[in-house]
């Protein structure tokens, strides 16, 4: 099973977890990642706090890019099932932004696939984040560390696995 949703509403991690497990009866490993809105600006030197973020996206294109990312992860890691839910709209500090969950026979592939998907969601999907807080608002650009994180998956086949 592959499930990809881009939605305004919140998601229930427990319900998604159970649905994923039910869809993958032979799985030996389930890895989930949940990203939350933090209350601090992206710049670590900035001591002001953020109130909310605004996530905007390209309706239709985001869904197909996410499907493509999960498909590439599946081609590489042959997991049993995966769920990706990414919220858009106005999200306050502490709210859930994104869920990536992977069920696989082996733990190394479950971890690798979840990280692969997260890295690509950050760098290859038509999603944009604006931080709004005590010091005004700011669109977040591609961060060097995220570009670097995503780059590791495109090396020569022998080093594609995260070691």
């Amino acid at each position, binding site marked *: 099973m592959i499930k990809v949703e881009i939605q305004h509403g919140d998601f229930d991690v427990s319900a998604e977890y159970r649905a994923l497990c039910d869809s993958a009866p032979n799985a030996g490993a389930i890895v989930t990642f949940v990203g939350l809105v933090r209350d601090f600006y992206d710049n670590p030197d900035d001591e002001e706090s953020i109130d909310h973020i605004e996530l905007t996206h*390209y309706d239709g*294109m985001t869904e197909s890019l996410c499907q493509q990312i999960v498909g590439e992860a599946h081609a590489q890691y042959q997991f049993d099932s995966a769920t990706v839910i990414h919220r858009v709209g106005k999200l306050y500090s502490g709210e859930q932004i994104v869920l990536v969950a992977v069920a696989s026979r082996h733990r190394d592939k479950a971890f690798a696939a979840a990280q692969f998907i997260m890295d690509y969601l*950050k*760098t*290859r*999907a*038509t*999603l*944009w984040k604006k931080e709004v807080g005590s010091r005004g608002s700011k669109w977040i650009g591609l961060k060097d560390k995220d570009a670097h994180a995503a780059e590791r998956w495109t090396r020569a086949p022998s080093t594609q696995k995260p070691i």
Partner: protein
Amino acid sequence: MIKLLFFAQLSELAGCDSTEAEFQNGLTPRMLVDQLESDMPAELIEALRFDAVMVSVNKVMAGWDDTLSADDEVAFLPPFSGG
């Protein structure tokens, strides 16, 4: 007509989410930006020419010098920041 979409900071600089342009044979996304120069804020044009901005045609990633077809939807995409 070609439909043009601006996202995130590009939409704020443009003051709108979308606009239209006349189709002509041989038109490319790069040429569209040149045409926008007469109507749109200079900050937008500068931002559109920033290296990291990408372009899609009909919701598929495309090149700046790809040839467009009539009724294409062209979107200008600033660096992504999902997740």
